[in-house]
């Protein structure tokens, strides 16, 4: 049934046997202003169509009317739970377009902040998934830890959510003196917290029964829909851009890439859960190897990239975050396009959400881990 037909059918809806329900845009479990049109047969969802656009801000068009450095703060608002990583992806793209060499120390700082951001983002996802499944306590626990990461970010950048901290060519400020000690202390404190999450979530039989075998996404469908990030890995494909298309200095670190088998919600949970462990490892190694030196490279007075285009992708907490820039040689990009992982990952929801119960839709949506700022741009 096409969306238009469903709209019509919604008007003439008849009974509980066949019911159309609008989930969102104001709903506690759509993680923002997503609207899902559900066709219900009793409790069973026979059709689910996501409607997006409630948070559309013309991000790309605005970008095309700004000079390259001015776009950085706008990228914060894409995936506002992982602003550092959006900055990372964008400045990397411009650097590659112009061909700027970034100092060693700045690269290490980027990785440290980026991986801390990954942990913070996964913590939010963990908490909200718990909330979606009715487990309120995990939400509070996850937020307690995230708070500490935000404190670290605040000490570095002065901001807690939208940092705009990466610069083309390096970083604007060095770490404060106390940062290294604080960060190490946080990691030592954080590592024993991870088993606590297991106790509340993955060791709990209700949670296991709820998510195992739910929302299965096989590897072929995942590739067909261009799924990326933890969702793709949960479906059994070992694909992580940090390893498969290394950028920055990720090829210097030892870390594992967790892979699932069946691609259900449980696997997505486990993949993200283990990724937090791996991110901790990366941050530890980066702190170990942090070299002294410059934090910003040599830049021309005016940023005028040569004519040409470039697509650069990074592994954001949600998947392949890509930036496509076309330069006509002026100060502003001719075309600026964002490939947002949340948007692409959401597109598979109608496939994996069909035939499950209303409660499962919420769990599946939670496991996709969307951020509406990125879906709608």
């Amino acid at each position, binding site marked *: 049934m096409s969306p238009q037909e469903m709209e019509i059918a919604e008007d003439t809806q008849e009974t*509980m046997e066949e*019911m159309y*329900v609008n989930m969102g845009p104001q*709903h*506690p*479990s759509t993680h923002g202003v997503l609207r899902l049109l559900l066709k*219900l047969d009793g*409790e069973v969802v026979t059709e689910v169509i996501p409607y997006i656009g409630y948070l559309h801000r013309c991000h790309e068009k605005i970008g095309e009317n700004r000079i390259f450095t001015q776009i950085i703060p706008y990228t914060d608002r894409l995936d506002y739970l992982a602003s550092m990583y959006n900055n990372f992806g964008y400045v990397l793209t411009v650097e590659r377009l112009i061909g700027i060499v970034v100092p060693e120390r700045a690269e290490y700082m980027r990785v440290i902040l980026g991986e801390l951001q990954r942990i913070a983002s996964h913590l939010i996802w963990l908490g909200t998934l*718990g*909330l*979606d*499944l*009715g*487990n*309120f*306590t995990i939400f*509070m*626990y996850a937020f*307690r830890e995230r708070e500490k990461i935000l404190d670290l970010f605040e000490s570095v950048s002065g901001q807690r959510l939208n940092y705009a901290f990466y610069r083309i060519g390096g970083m604007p400020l060095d770490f404060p003196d106390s940062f290294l000690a604080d960060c190490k202390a946080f990691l030592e404190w954080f590592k024993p917290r991870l088993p606590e999450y297991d106790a*509340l*979530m993955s060791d*709990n039989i*209700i*949670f296991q*029964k*709820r998510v195992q075998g739910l929302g299965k996404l096989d590897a072929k469908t995942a590739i067909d829909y261009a799924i990326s990030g933890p969702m793709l890995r949960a479906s059994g494909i070992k694909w992580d851009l940090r390893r498969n298309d290394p950028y920055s200095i990720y090829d210097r670190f030892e870390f594992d890439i967790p892979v699932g088998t069946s691609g259900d919600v449980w696997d997505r949970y486990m993949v993200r859960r283990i990724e937090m462990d791996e991110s901790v490892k990366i941050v530890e190694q980066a702190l170990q190897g942090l070299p002294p030196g410059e934090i910003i490279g040599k830049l021309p007075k005016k940023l005028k990239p040569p004519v040409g285009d470039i697509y650069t992708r990074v592994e954001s907490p949600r998947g392949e975050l890509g930036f496509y820039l076309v330069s006509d040689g002026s100060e502003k990009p001719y075309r600026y396009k964002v490939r947002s992982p949340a948007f692409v990952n959401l597109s598979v929801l109608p496939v994996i959400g069909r035939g499950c*119960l*209303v*409660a*499962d839709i*919420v769990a599946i949506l939670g496991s996709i881990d969307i951020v509406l700022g990125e879906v709608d741009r």
Partner: protein
Amino acid sequence: MATVSSETLMEQFYNAFETWGLPLFVPQLIVMVVVATAVLIFVAVSVMFMVWWERKISAHIQVRFGPMRVGGWHGWAQSIADGIKLLIKEDIVPEGADRLVFALAPMVVFAAGFAAYVIIPFGPGLIVSDLNIGVLFYISISSLTVVGIIMAGWSSNNKYSVLGAIRSAAQAVSYEVPLVVSILGVIMTVGSLSMTRIVEAQQGVWFVIPQLLGFLIYMIAAIAECNRLPFDIPEAESELVAGFHVEYSGMRFAIFFLAEYANMFTVSAIAAALFLGGWHGPLLPGWLWFLLKTYFLIFVMMWLRWTLARLRVDQLMNLGWKVLLPLAFLNMGITGLILVLRG
């Protein structure tokens, strides 16, 4: 003994009216009104305490403090403030709602919860009315709650609330059966439905020991009857927003809230009376023992709520029909067999 003196007091009270030449039902009515008011006040106070307590428990489970400001000591007056706030809020009736049913629904729910207090034995003689069908009365009156919930869900003219109401009806019907069957073991052992007789029969051994299985089934089914996590499917916040009372606000919402916590107290009190020996206990006075046991069970319910995730509808049904019900029947059969063998 308190009972004796209260009975003579009552007799004097009735005699006084007789000498004034008034018919008997006048003092009877006065007694009824007084008792009902007392119970109502008890319900309101205990609910306010329970709400505050739950917030405190949840906060401490989640490494927070919870309410700390209102009233000074650990925010004890928070519930009172919240209650007043709800009372003075605007009463909103959604457009397209069935006004009469919408207004009636919270009353039905509350009346059902309130009526169950009639048979709670707070102490020896401290019972509103020791009906000879006591437990049966509770079971039948508690089924009225579902009607109220369906009324609320349907009259709100909202699909989420209808879904919540339907879920709730299915859940209540499914869990009523194991609940009743799990109690049967106790009733068979005592041979009476009267709450006082059941408590008196636990002078020596509490029924939780011979009827452990029944107790566990009762508690699980009771949590489901109260619509609390992990069985809060009718109002599942993250799925149905708030289920059947999505559209309610202000005073009417407060009544639903009150009824929910009052129900929680009722099922815990019934469990304390049926399985944990009611008012029996050393040293402390009977009513205190009863309240301690009841609040302990309430604490367990809160503890579960803030630890576990929510079940899915089909899992809930499977648990009710395929696990709890056969176990409850098994419990009943074994109890009957033992009773027959003992003669």
